[in-house]
């Protein structure tokens, strides 16, 4: 029995190894406030972004560290399920000193008292008035600032110039009715199988990309007390065009219909002649589809009104941080005029400070001006602490309205009822 010794050895060595591991837990003590050079270490958590953005972030951080030689920034990316990980670490009191927070999740964290109020840290020099109001207000509760927006993007229309030329169209559509006509002309279904090879319009079906349509029709996303409020005629009117275009006219398609990851991808692959997307699509197209000749414009008017959505992310400070002063210096730099200028210099994201936007001249930038223009009337993607629940239920039901499984009225009603039930039973 040759095997015996081998198994005995395996058993003993694994026992030894187990006890050795249990014994010496000194290997990587979680880093304390200072590193070996005596510098204060500030931990920063964020989600992963494109390599180009990552590079630029590194550059901005380096600029900060040069100005503050006594502080070292330890930046770690959370690979997936960002908010779940952040929440778990916050509960354990082990979250990073500074982390990214999407406006969507801000209300619940502000209410839960886990973020450091920043009012006492702010100085005259920081110049809060310089921020675009709707963006900075997304991280403010009862007069207290809990974070400052690092950048933002609005939605705009991307249109394929070549496709427009072929269809005999000049310039982007001015309003939604025009967009609908254009989409019909731009849709290409050569083999006539009912599945176009190129859709007139590519769009995203999530609430985050649809909610801004409610307002021009006099509807709204949530009530004063944070409950869903879209099950009414106004909202139906607002969403009906896109449902009709998808379901009946087949002039609008989803990225998943053509195997694309998101609208920008769909547009780059020329499977949609127009898409409604954010600023992040510009560098994406530049890198992956440099040959596509396109333009951007403000979103077509909805019911005679200008409307778009704004997405913004802030740097916030952990209330349990042990290096609050250093953490503040970092936030101050990153959201201050100097840091923001470096960070937004390449146009991956737009500056939330008016002065920086002026300085970088994005208002005159051919592709980016449409996004900057939108900032003044954009509706931030945020609506109280229940928005994640509302969003879930909307996303769940709206698809089936798109597919014609149920009418839009039914879908919205169902989404609202389920969401509000859930909200009232959890409180």
């Amino acid at each position, binding site marked *: 029995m040759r095997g015996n010794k081998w198994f005995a050895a*395996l058993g003993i060595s694994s026992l030894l190894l187990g006890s050795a591991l249990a014994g010496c837990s000194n290997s990587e003590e979680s880093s304390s406030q200072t590193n070996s050079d005596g510098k204060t270490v500030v931990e920063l958590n964020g989600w992963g972004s*494109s390599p180009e953005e990552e590079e630029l972030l590194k550059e901005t951080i380096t600029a900060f560290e040069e100005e503050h030689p006594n502080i070292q920034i330890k930046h770690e990316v959370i690979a997936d399920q960002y908010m779940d990980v952040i929440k778990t670490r916050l509960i354990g009191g082990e979250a990073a000193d500074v982390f990214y927070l999407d406006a969507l999740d801000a209300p619940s964290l502000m209410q839960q008292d886990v973020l450091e109020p920043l009012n006492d840290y702010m100085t005259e020099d920081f110049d809060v008035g310089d921020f675009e109001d709707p963006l900075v207000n997304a991280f403010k509760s009862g007069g207290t600032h809990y974070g400052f927006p690092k950048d933002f993007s609005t939605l705009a229309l991307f249109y394929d110039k070549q496709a427009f030329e072929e269809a005999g169209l000049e310039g982007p559509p001015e309003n939604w009715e025009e967009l609908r006509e254009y989409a019909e002309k731009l849709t290409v279904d050569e083999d006539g199988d009912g599945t176009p090879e190129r859709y007139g319009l590519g769009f995203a079906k999530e609430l985050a990309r649809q909610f801004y349509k409610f307002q021009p029709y006099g509807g709204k996303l949530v009530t004063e007390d944070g409950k869903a409020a879209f099950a009414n005629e106004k909202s139906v009117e607002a969403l009906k065009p896109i449902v009709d275009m998808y379901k009946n006219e087949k002039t609008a398609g989803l990225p998943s219909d053509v195997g694309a990851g998101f609208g920008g991808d769909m547009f780059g692959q020329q499977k949609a002649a127009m898409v409604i997307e954010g600023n992040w699509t510009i560098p994406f197209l530049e890198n992956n589809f440099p040959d596509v000749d396109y333009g951007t414009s403000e979103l077509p008017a909805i019911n005679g009104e200008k409307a778009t959505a704004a997405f913004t992310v802030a740097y916030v400070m952990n209330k349990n941080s042990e290096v609050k002063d250093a953490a503040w210096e970092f936030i101050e730099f990153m959201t201050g005029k100097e840091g923001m200028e470096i960070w937004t210099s390449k146009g991956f994201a737009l500056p939330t400070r008016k002065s920086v936007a002026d300085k970088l001249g994005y208002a005159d930038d051919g592709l980016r001006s449409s996004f900057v223009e939108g900032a003044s009337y954009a509706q931030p993607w945020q609506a109280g602490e229940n928005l994640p629940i509302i969003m879930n239920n909307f996303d769940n039901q709206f698809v089936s309205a798109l597919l014609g499984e149920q009418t839009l009225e039914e879908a919205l009603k169902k989404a609202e009822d389920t969401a509000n039930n859930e909200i009232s039973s959890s409180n």
Partner: protein
Amino acid sequence: MNKKRITSILVYTILIGYAVITFIPFLWAVLSSFKPLSEIVSGITFIPENFTLGNYTEVFSREPLFFRWMLNSVIITACMVALNIVFNSMAGYALARIRFAGRKFWFFLILAVLMIPFQVTLIPSYLILKTFGWLNTYQGLIIPGMVNATFIFMMRQFFLNFPKELEEAAQMDGLSRFGTFFRIVMPLAKPALAAQAVFIFMSSWNDFMRPLIIMSDKDMFTLTLGLNTFKGQYISYWNLIMAASTLMTLPSLLIYAFFNRFFIKGVTFTGGK
């Protein structure tokens, strides 16, 4: 004879058909990792037209910590496999063969813990690791995972089928329970142990959720966590994602191919004497 022939043709047809269904998607994924991005995006080519190794060198060069992550994964996985094999088999053996008080209770408990989804125990487990000061350490991943209820259960079911006479003979020869277990039972359980080794290796190697929450320091990432972070950043770079995915899958496949020989009929008993 003719009937036998038809059966065997039928069996081969089904096996080959199933193999094709299974193999094509993987072949596609692996082949894609040798294509430049433009080729993947531009449409469906199956075999790379412009064969390149560039995606792999790029993954290595863009992630300087690649080998560190690999080392972390190897250390953690090696410990997990060694500890699990011994501990799970011991527990499975006890539950199947030793008549001790409370045996039924423990067996039921082991089944019961499998039935609670981890989503609700994640936060309490995290808090416990924090209390021990094991966040961001190897032992934070290894110690809680050094036994596995699933495989205790599996080993118990295996040992139920085991020839009891061998153990009795060994005990007559004066071997203790421990001696019997390590010298007689374990060597005879090679197929089950090999299967277990493969599964533990895979689950530890591919584990994503636990390292994601426990390891906050990039130096301590496992390969799977690191490459997933990489994938998050290179979301539209399908060529690099496919290369990273292939790199993630390869070790498990090699381990399986290695242990596969233990499943081959006859090894158990011819090797026993």
